[in-house]
């Protein structure tokens, strides 16, 4: 009896897992087939610059987080172009970052790209120990280390545009503005600061409610928080909760408030309440990095990219969308925001410095 039970349990488990595995199988094998497929198709032109090289992206769990899937897309495309082998390493926790980066150096990697702030400290440690072994880059964070090329963004510029859009969308129907973010850290502060400044430039009476999901992938919680903010009178709720934003969109559909997305164009023909999306073009970032790496212009100097460089922006303002624009926004309003973009590009409006949260009065 005991044996049969154990065996049947094992069998049921194995079968159910196999069923789940079947769904997954397309993704990893697809990602896996890419390097070999890439080099096969390039057999004619056999002297690609990246032949035999390895470039790794080390990041958090990817899932459907557009910030990361865009990086992977860029890496896959450039791998086919230059012929290197791409390695994508997802880290389940903080300690795994250092383990993986160390192991990548030991396994002979040529460029390691850290995709997010969590890779900062491990990259710092490993690069100091093995300065010659590999090139290092860090996206979306900055550390004091001349060996690591840090690319940070001026997200406050994009958030400023979204803030203006928000105020124009609401048109004075409410003076309470919401925002659902991932963490209450300095990373989110850049978004909140820009957003608040943008709103207040049009609606000086504005007050703000911010809540945090404490996760990069929690749509359920994001939805709850958005509904709570709506109940507090928010007519516009800025989604900045990474993969959790889909929960905010759902709430917007149900309750009828307006919202905006993050990282990629999240506007949709099916959901008229998503009026814009704050863009952070990680696809272009990784592509630029790899191009620079093979183009011979590689230096480990840090850079910060914003609206002027085209990596930060807002849908319907700096970037067009295939989906129809919300009828809450008029051409004059969009033109007004686009004028701000020009000011940012010309340097007339400089948002490089963000005040510390403690020193900012709401």
């Amino acid at each position, binding site marked *: 009896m*005991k044996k049969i039970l*154990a065996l049947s*349990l*094992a069998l049921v*488990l*194995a079968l159910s*897992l*196999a069923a789940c*595995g*079947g769904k*997954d*199988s397309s*993704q*990893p*094998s697809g*990602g*896996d087939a890419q390097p070999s497929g890439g080099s096969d198709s390039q057999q004619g032109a056999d002297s690609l610059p990246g032949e035999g090289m390895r470039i*790794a992206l080390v990041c958090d*769990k990817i899932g459907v987080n557009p910030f990361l899937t865009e990086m992977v897309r860029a890496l896959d495309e450039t791998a086919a172009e230059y012929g290197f082998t791409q*390695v*994508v*390493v*997802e*880290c*389940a*926790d*903080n*300690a*795994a970052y*250092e*383990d*993986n980066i*160390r*192991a*990548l150096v*030991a*396994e002979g990697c040529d460029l390691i790209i850290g995709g997010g*702030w*969590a890779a*900062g*400290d491990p990259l710092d440690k490993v690069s100091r120990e093995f300065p010659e072994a590999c090139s290092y880059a860090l996206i979306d*964070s*900055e*550390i*004091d280390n001349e060996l690591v090329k*840090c690319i*940070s963004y001026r997200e406050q510029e994009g958030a400023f545009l979204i803030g203006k859009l928000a105020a124009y969308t609401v048109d004075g129907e409410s003076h309470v503005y919401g925002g659902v973010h991932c963490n*209450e*850290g*300095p*990373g989110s502060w850049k978004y909140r600061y820009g957003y608040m400044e943008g709103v207040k430039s049009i609606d000086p009476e504005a007050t703000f409610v911010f809540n945090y999901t404490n996760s990069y992938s929690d749509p359920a919680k994001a939805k709850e928080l958005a509904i709570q903010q709506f109940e507090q009178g928010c007519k516009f709720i800025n989604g900045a909760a990474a993969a959790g934003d889909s929960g905010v969109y759902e709430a917007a559909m149900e309750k009828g408030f307006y919202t905006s997305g993050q990282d990629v164009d999240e506007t949709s023909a099916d959901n008229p309440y998503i009026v814009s999306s704050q863009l952070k073009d990680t696809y272009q970032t990784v592509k630029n990095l790899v191009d620079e790496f093979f183009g011979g212009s590689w230096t480990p100097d840090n850079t910060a990219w914003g609206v002027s460089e085209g990596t930060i922006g807002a849908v319907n303002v700096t970037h067009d969308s295939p989906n129809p624009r919300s009828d809450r926004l008029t051409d004059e309003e969009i033109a007004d925001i686009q004028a701000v973009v020009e000011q940012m590009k010309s340097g007339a409006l400089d948002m490089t410095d963000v005040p510390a949260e403690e020193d900012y009065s709401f």
Partner: protein
Amino acid sequence: MKPSKAKELAGQIWRALRQPLAAAVFGLLVGAVVILACGQNPVTVYIEMFNKSFFTPYYLFSTLTRATPIIICAMATGMAWRAGYINIGVEGQMVTGTFAATVAALYIPGPPIFVGLVSWIAGMAAGALYALLPAVLNWKFQVSMVITTLMLNYVANNIASYFVTYPLKDTSGDGLALQTAEIAEGLRLTRLSSTSTFNAGFLIAAAVVLLMIFITKKTVFGYESKMGGFNSSFARYGGTKQVKVMMITMALSGAIASLAGTAEVFGLKFRYADGMLSSTNYAWTGLMAALIADLDPAGMFFVSIFLSGLQIGGSAIQRSLGIPLEIATIIQCCITLFVSVKLVFRFTRGKARREEAKGGAQA
């Protein structure tokens, strides 16, 4: 006499190991099915996985480094569980202790040896006090220790999170990372390998295992706490002071838990970063190891290393073969699952026997 004694010992080891081994084999088999579903050859994957976790020196060192906090957490769990106190707050005690130790190391002036000693002791004291909190609540108000210890995990994590986000945040670089400054060079544990991060923390873990074996096998306290775990009414009848035993047990458990994180900070990270001890699930992996090994100290030591190897090997197959990290997690969970099947069987068998003994007098 000798051969028979050796045979007896071998039999004992076999009985202790056969369940975890069978669970491991079943877990790997289920993993093989998942790997097949991913379109890869399980044999190649497993060879790569074990090569890059146990059979190459570099990776073995990584495995042992990662095992260090897991081993200590397993010991902290075992210390409380064997006495019948279901302490699932090892994570909170570890965070509190580690944070206290890190702060002490950062802000107490003086020669490194003195500061080092004070910070380790401060960490242990903080961990012990934090573990006493649920013990006192249980003693005075009969609050379930399972709930309090679990909930206090979040309290500890969020308090530490607050401190590294605001008052104690390191502002070098762009100041985006939520972490404290680095502790001084003189306080860091010696590295035992030139290429990897393997450090003296592992020796501390080994020492904790020996201490645990000593306490459980050779001291009166060890006996009393074990009795309490088996049958608290009997222990009370036998004259043990249960409150005292509970306080000492929980304090020891908390103090040991703090060592896990302190060894991680002083040997590996050199700073406290937000979520460094909770996102890694050290305490929960340690708990898993303790359950698999049936709370036997030596068993917990090896099972912790095995589980850590699965995690290191899981990352390795992701890097070289593109197998998703979840595979390693699936194998790990299956092993735990099969071990818990054992627990259930035991429970039902024991129940059947008890009912037999009762002769169905009480329906």
